[in-house]
């Protein structure tokens, strides 16, 4: 048995853990760094009522936004949906339950889940309405809100190169939340441009250690039309 090689699978095999109601976490910032073949594969599975967690709602035809515009999403935890009018429409119509967090706070909440700490303390000044229903603590005379960690059932991420163990390096601005999602998801699927043998990536430049990656799929790089 070579457990390293067994991580390389097809999109269909990788997505076996995604079903109706799955909490799906995704990398990407404005769609850049969201894995296109995995999003396409999830669309093709026709799963319903997903919960999504990610930086933003992408665009109606790009990134995780595609899942929203095709009506597959019930809940969304994100920092903004300004680039996806379809998400705004569904929210106003009560079909999409959206919870907003400040962008850096959301990233830290995901990382906290990824490193197994229960939560973080956030400055009470961080915006209006953020404290609704949240616990407060007082340290040295200042008030902070408790922000619990976020984990997810499945994480889908995008990287430039994986080795066969799943060690990853990213590509410029397409890194963003991907290394955090890799740690925070119970099952992490990495879509990559290139797969090399274990040992081919300099250990010093690995950003995500392969222990966090359960499945590796080769990106087909094509955003196919759908429906």
């Amino acid at each position, binding site marked *: 048995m070579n457990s390293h090689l067994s991580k390389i699978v097809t999109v269909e095999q990788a997505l076996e853990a995604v079903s109706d109601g799955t909490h799906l976490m995704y990398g990407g910032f404005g769609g850049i760094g969201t894995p296109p073949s995995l999003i396409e594969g999830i669309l093709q599975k026709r799963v319903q009522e997903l919960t999504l967690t990610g930086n933003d709602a992408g665009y109606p035809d790009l990134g995780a936004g595609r899942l929203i515009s095709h009506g597959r999403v019930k809940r969304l935890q994100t920092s903004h949906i300004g680039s996806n009018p379809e998400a705004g429409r569904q929210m106003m119509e009560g079909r999409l339950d959206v919870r907003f967090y400040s962008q*850096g706070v959301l990233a830290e909440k995901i990382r906290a889940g990824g490193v197994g700490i229960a939560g973080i303390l956030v400055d009470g000044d961080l915006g209006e309405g953020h404290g609704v229903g949240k616990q407060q603590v007082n340290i040295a005379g200042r008030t902070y809100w408790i922000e619990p960690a976020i984990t997810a059932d499945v994480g889908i991420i995008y990287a430039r190169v994986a080795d066969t163990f799943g060690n990853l390096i990213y590509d410029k601005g397409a890194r963003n939340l991907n290394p955090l999602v890799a740690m925070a998801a119970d099952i992490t699927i990495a879509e990559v441009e290139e797969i090399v043998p274990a040992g081919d990536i300099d250990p010093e430049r690995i950003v995500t250690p392969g222990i966090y990656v359960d499945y590796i799929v080769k990106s087909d790089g094509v955003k196919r039309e759908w429906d």
Partner: protein
Amino acid sequence: MIARRAAREIRPGMAVNLGIGIPELVTDFVPNDWNVMFHSVNGILGIGPTPSKGHEHPYLSSAGGSPATLVPGASFFDSTIAYGMIRRGKLDVAMIGGLQVSRKGHLANWVVPGKRVYGIGGGAELALYAKRVIVLMSHVTEAGEPKIVKECTLPLTAKNCIDLIITEMAVMEVTEEGLLLTEVMYPYTLEEVIGNTGAPLYISEQLQTVD
């Protein structure tokens, strides 16, 4: 012009975040040899000039999605570090857009009037934690209403966060006592600035008229 005036707030070697909109134009007025490190919340420090046509890289862009290049010394990092730099006070200047600024330096820039609430993004963290926060915006709304007001009526992004306001009409510092008018931009007059401002202005003894 707002961006050109704003560039004068930048010094060699500073780390600067430029928000979406008018702030993005500031790069054009900062000399390359100043080694200013432009920061982008999508995980880049060291954004360079806009690339020429055909030399764009799909994953190399500003947070707003505009194609970008890198300067020597640039680095990539994840979103926790992008915001960690901000919260740790490593950014010397953040220049951001605004819908309303109060005389106390409160900022409202995330809920467009009459539009839906689309999420605060990263605006609050930039406004609260950069060492110096400068708002670049038009002096009045499209309807001619003052954007500089006694009290903000739009939902706030962050309180007591603004240090300087630069518009096409004027430059104003936010001080303990209120707004201090330091520059009037040609061709506007002192009277026009006061008339289009919804908060009391203290006039600096060193008031300049700038063209």
